[in-house]
């Protein structure tokens, strides 16, 4: 990293506080990351100087707001290696991006008996939209199984599954519940070989790893700004241009139309036909600043930092007795999820909270995965650029204290 650890921490104002008399250790980054000063300033600077609606007024402020909003789109395209900014649709986040495809693409192409392939490790937001689509279209859902506690996809089953009348394959890049890093490029290649359209849920990867959609070879990819130093309420769908152009709109309303009559309308071209209503302008501007910030540090550096912390935490946790660690034996993202047979996840999280340690306990919006592993919930620690090994040492101390307390 070009920046030092100290300088990175200082750029995140929220980290400089005590919680219940202890220095805050923020280990809930898979839920949402903290925001650096530059993102906070970009958002407030927009409201202080340029606030206006986009694509409407011809006054100076509206022009500036439109330019800034569209510049964020071009930045997002460059950030993920898309060929054109027309391939970036702004959404509220990963969830809305997936819903867009599950609605517009599935309604157009799926017939009864067609199949959508998912995996058993998906977040509810990459599962429920497809359930709704299946209900509407008569399509069926099928799943790539996971191996068990190590949380790998059973890829020997993939080609046979894909061959079974599958039209679309949607899967996560990095599992938020396990820390598994799926081989996205290989999965997309195998799907493409059988003419299957792919959607990658990149919520946990865009801000954590170098990522290039042309290298991955996916057709769609979804991500959220708030998990990569940006604001909440903004995210994007990448879609291959020819695919987006062929799709009907998702929502109807202002901004997305060219011409409106009482009984019918014509819409704009991509990507604007998918963006009905006043968009989250400040969010896009904040996301722009976040992408700049992440590239200043370097996503390669972020990736190795996160994985080093993930590995370190896994190694420390493996040495504790009475602890069931989930996730891959090697090549783990910055996520450590585990189960204590004698202590419920919520008791762990309440206790840790009083030690200034922000963890997550629950099913992590992956109830089918939990069920598959025979669990109700796990405790999860997830790391980011500002976290350190010293914080992990402290976290392990607190877990030991908790085990002794509930003993």
């Amino acid at each position, binding site marked *: 990293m070009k920046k030092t650890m100290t300088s990175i921490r200082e750029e995140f104002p929220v980290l400089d506080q005590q919680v219940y008399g202890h220095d805050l250790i923020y280990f809930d980054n898979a839920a949402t990351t903290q925001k650096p000063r530059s993102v906070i300033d970009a958002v407030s600077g927009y409201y202080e100087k340029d606030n206006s609606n986009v694509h409407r007024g011809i006054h100076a402020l509206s022009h500036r707001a439109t330019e800034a909003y569209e510049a964020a789109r071009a930045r997002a395209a460059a950030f993920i290696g898309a060929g054109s900014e027309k391939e970036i649709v702004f959404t509220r986040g990963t969830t809305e991006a997936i819903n867009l495809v599950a609605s517009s693409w599935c309604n157009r192409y799926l017939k009864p008996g067609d199949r959508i392939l998912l995996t058993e490790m998906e977040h509810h937001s990459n599962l429920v939209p497809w359930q709704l689509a299946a209900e509407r279209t008569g399509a069926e859902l099928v799943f790539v199984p996971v191996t068990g506690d190590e949380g790998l996809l059973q890829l020997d089953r993939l080609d046979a599954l894909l061959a079974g009348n599958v039209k679309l394959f949607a899967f996560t890049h990095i599992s938020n519940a396990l820390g598994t890093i799926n081989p996205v490029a290989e999965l997309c290649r195998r799907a493409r070989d059988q003419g299957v359209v792919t959607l990658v849920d990149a919520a946990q990867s865009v801000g954590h790893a170098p990522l290039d959609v042309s290298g991955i070879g996916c057709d769609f990819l979804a991500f959220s700004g708030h998990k990569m130093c940006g604001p909440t309420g903004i995210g994007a769908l990448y879609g291959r241009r020819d695919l987006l152009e062929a799709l009907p709109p998702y929502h109807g309303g202002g901004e997305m139309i060219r011409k409106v009559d009482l009984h019918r309308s014509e819409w704009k071209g991509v990507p604007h036909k998918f963006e009905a209503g006043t968009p989250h302008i400040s969010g896009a501007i904040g996301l722009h600043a976040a992408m700049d910030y992440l590239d200043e540090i370097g996503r390669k550096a972020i990736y190795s930092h996160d994985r080093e912390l993930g590995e370190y935490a896994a190694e420390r946790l493996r040495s504790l007795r009475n602890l069931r660690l989930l996730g891959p034996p090697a090549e783990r993202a910055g996520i450590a999820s585990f189960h204590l047979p004698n202590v*419920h996840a*919520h*008791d762990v999280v309440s206790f840790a909270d009083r030690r200034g340690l922000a963890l997550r306990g629950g099913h992590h919006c992956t109830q089918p995965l939990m069920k598959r592993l025979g669990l*109700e919930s796990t405790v999860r620690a997830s790391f980011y650029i500002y976290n350190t090994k010293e914080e992990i040492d402290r976290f392990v101390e607190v877990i030991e204290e908790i085990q002794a307390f509930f003993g």
Partner: protein
Amino acid sequence: MQDIADLYQAVILDHNRRPRNFGEMENPDRVAVGDNPVCGDHYTVFLQMDGDRIREITFHGAGCAISKASASVMTSMLKGKTLAEIKALYSDFHHLVTSGEIDEGNLSDLSAFAGVHQFPARIKCATLSWHAALNAAERPGEEPEPVTTE
């Protein structure tokens, strides 16, 4: 200074480790389920009744220390009580876990839950099995709809 020991009193830790009246009942008169889908806590409460008086009560299921200890203490206290008495006790208990104020002498071991009010996210854990028990006691029919907190 709020501390973690305010929440996890010795009585709670003990009931969590060794829950009383824990297990399914062979021939219950009434059964009710309490679920918290957010955290996955789920309990079933089994009752045998003499009129509107509880003769036997057990519970089964899984959840956090607060919910399990609360169910355990509750079952120890409800045996022999009438529906009206249970409602009055629940109202005192609810006041306790939302305010931290102990103003009644008959709370007994339930007063260990006074610290819960400092942890608003955990109030539902403390009241989950009570909702199920009240639901079972109030309704004569078998297997009412599961009650859910949140």
